[in-house]
């Protein structure tokens, strides 16, 4: 007698068949760019600790087309992460109550998005004002 063979649904490419799953995978893959970017910064810190020549080598590497292309892609993924992070905030936060009423989901998402835009602009302004 043959051993029982049960059907196992293949996993390959499951996320490509549905736009919702595709968006999910793109969102999760933003983590790859977050981690790689952190490693780029960590490498910079390492080169900084080694002295001027090493650090300038790291900076020259950042100015190459490949490095700039990587950062442009990382920017797109991390910006998408930022949007999704606030879009799920009504579900990830405990219920927020103001004056005994639950704050509307849309208000929470908008507040998060506005806070993020302000934080990005403040960061740019700080770097701009202290530029050499």
């Amino acid at each position, binding site marked *: 007698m043959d051993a029982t063979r049960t059907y196992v649904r293949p996993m390959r490419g499951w996320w490509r068949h549905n736009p919702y799953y595709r968006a999910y995978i793109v969102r999760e*893959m933003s983590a*790859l760019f*977050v981690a790689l970017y*952190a490693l780029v*910064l*960590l490498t910079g*810190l390492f080169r900084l600790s080694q002295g001027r020549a090493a650090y300038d080598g790291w900076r020259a590497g950042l100015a190459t087309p490949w490095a700039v292309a990587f950062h442009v892609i990382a920017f797109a993924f991390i910006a998408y992460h930022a949007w999704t992070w*606030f879009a799920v905030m009504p579900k990830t936060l405990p219920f927020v109550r103001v004056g005994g009423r639950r704050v509307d989901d849309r208000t929470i998402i908008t507040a998060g998005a506005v806070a993020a835009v302000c934080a990005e602009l403040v*960061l740019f302004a700080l770097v701009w004002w202290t530029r050499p």
Partner: protein
Amino acid sequence: MKRSNKPIFWSLFGAGGTLAALVGPMLVLITGVLVPLGLLLPADTMSFERMRAFAQNGFGKATIFVVITLLLFHGFHRLYHCLHDFGVHVGPGLKAAFHGCAIAGTAATVFLLARIA
């Protein structure tokens, strides 16, 4: 019952995700595009002298530490959970490997910041 370590890693994931959502895109744009190309901001914004002074200063050290470590914990935690989506069966070994990368990165950051006195 043994206490779960999930709240620790989840909190670090959450903190890193919030940091990445608030300032991540602009940080990548500044350090990866604008400054290297000298667009809007001069290339010397990240000169050796300025970055060394930043890494020597207490506020600068704290900023570098928070940014690198929280982004690492966020990234590796999320990637670890992604393995399942691609059909990889995870166990304690892979969990230790992914979180271990973030912990090793944290240790390296502390060591390097201490070395740039």
